[in-house]
């Protein structure tokens, strides 16, 4: 199995002086589904934006991040963005076109594909997320769950190799959350999911990374890491209900 993402000693300080990342290192292999958890302000979103080259604001030199062996640098930033698709936390930031079709077609059009190829990509992506029939609907006429699906279709239409999801189930009702989780499960890409929904991580992810204060403070099998009550409580988290009732080594609750 090849290495999809390799990060070595990544530091980042925002222009106002806030230190967000303090020497983060990890390796994610192709096909893994990794949960990124931590309290608010831990640095999750900052880290995700680095994987797509959105941060730092100006890339003058190569970053200590390799995507499928390629270090992110000023020469390959657009190629990296094509390989790493990011779904942002607020669907209203991501759905900026007047209809679902136009929005999903935005990425393929940026890749200078022909109209026929764009149509194929859009139709396929919309079908994958289950939004057929809503192509011409404006985003403000979609429900919360449909908006999330439209965002995901927009990312999938870019044909990425890595899917990065920032709080994908925030603001969804339990049914919407369950359906969206099932949708993520069916996508066979390398996935990184930053979330506070620890049950989703326990159910869906093959690995988990706990970060706090800009550092990785725990990593490994979600069923073991998330069941470590001391680790969870020390970093503003808690053992998910799913593990309290379904722990492989017996009842940990």
């Amino acid at each position: 199995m090849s290495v999809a993402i390799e990060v070595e000693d990544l530091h980042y300080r925002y222009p106002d002086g806030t230190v967000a990342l303090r020497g983060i290192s990890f390796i994610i292999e192709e096909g893994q589904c990794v949960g990124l958890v931590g309290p608010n302000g831990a640095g999750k979103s900052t880290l995700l934006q680095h994987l797509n080259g959105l941060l730092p604001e100006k890339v003058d030199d190569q970053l200590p991040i390799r995507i499928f062996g390629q270090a992110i640098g000023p020469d390959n930033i657009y190629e990296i963005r094509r390989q790493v698709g990011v779904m942002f936390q607020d669907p209203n930031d991501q759905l900026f076109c007047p209809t679902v079709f136009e929005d999903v077609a935005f990425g393929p059009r940026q890749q200078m594909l022909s109209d026929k190829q764009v149509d194929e990509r859009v139709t396929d992506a919309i079908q994958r997320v289950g939004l057929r029939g809503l192509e011409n609907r404006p985003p403000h006429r979609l429900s919360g769950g449909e908006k999330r699906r439209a965002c995901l279709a927009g990312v999938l239409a870019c044909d990425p190799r890595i899917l990065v999801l920032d709080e994908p189930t925030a603001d969804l009702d339990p049914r919407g959350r369950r359906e969206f989780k099932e949708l993520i499960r069916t996508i066979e890409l390398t996935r990184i999911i930053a979330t506070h929904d620890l049950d989703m991580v326990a159910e869906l992810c093959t690995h988990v990374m706990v970060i706090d204060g800009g550092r990785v403070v725990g990593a490994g099998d979600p069923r073991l890491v998330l069941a470590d009550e001391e680790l969870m409580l020390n970093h503003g988290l808690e053992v998910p209900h799913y593990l309290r009732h379904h722990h492989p080594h017996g009842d940990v609750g």
Partner: protein
Amino acid sequence: MLRNTVEARYLDHYSYLNSPIHRLGAHTKLAIAIAMVFLVLLIPIWWYWFHAVVWLMLLVTALVSRIPLGGLLKRLRWVWVVLLVISLGRLWQEDGLYRFLSAIIKGSECLVTMVLLANTTRFTDLLQVIAALQAPRIFVTTLSLMYRYLFVLTDEKNRMLRARRSRTFRQSNWWVWLLQSNLIANLFVRCAERASRIHAAMLSRGMQ
């Protein structure tokens, strides 16, 4: 304006009604509306019969389109106030009354035509027609972003108003004005923040 907390999704709901006017192609309606505006502007107001026919056509269109007349008038009131203010200046010119009436009558005909067009045609269809007419890309993109975020910002404004009202316990005009100005400033800051997040979303999907 800020006192009005219309839910954002109702801003364009008339354009989703089903009527013979709504079913007409967007390009046909746009062509008729533009032709109408040109004719109205070219033909003097003493051609009374012409203007009577225009008003009759507008009324019939409004009735056939099934848009409530009250709703239409509500949408016209603010633009009509602007028209009135602009036209008032003509009163001090030569033939002031004639010029004033001309501006008011012709302006009103144009406004009603455009408001009817906007409320009987989905904006996304209008955008497609405008793009097909080879309008500059930047113009079409600006219009589409304006349309998209009109709803998001209206919702944001409504949420801020609701939050403010829930913690307002006294009636004072000075206090209300102060809060209104704070709210507008806050809305600007939020717009700027959102703009940078939208830009990031565009970059992440390959925009160069």
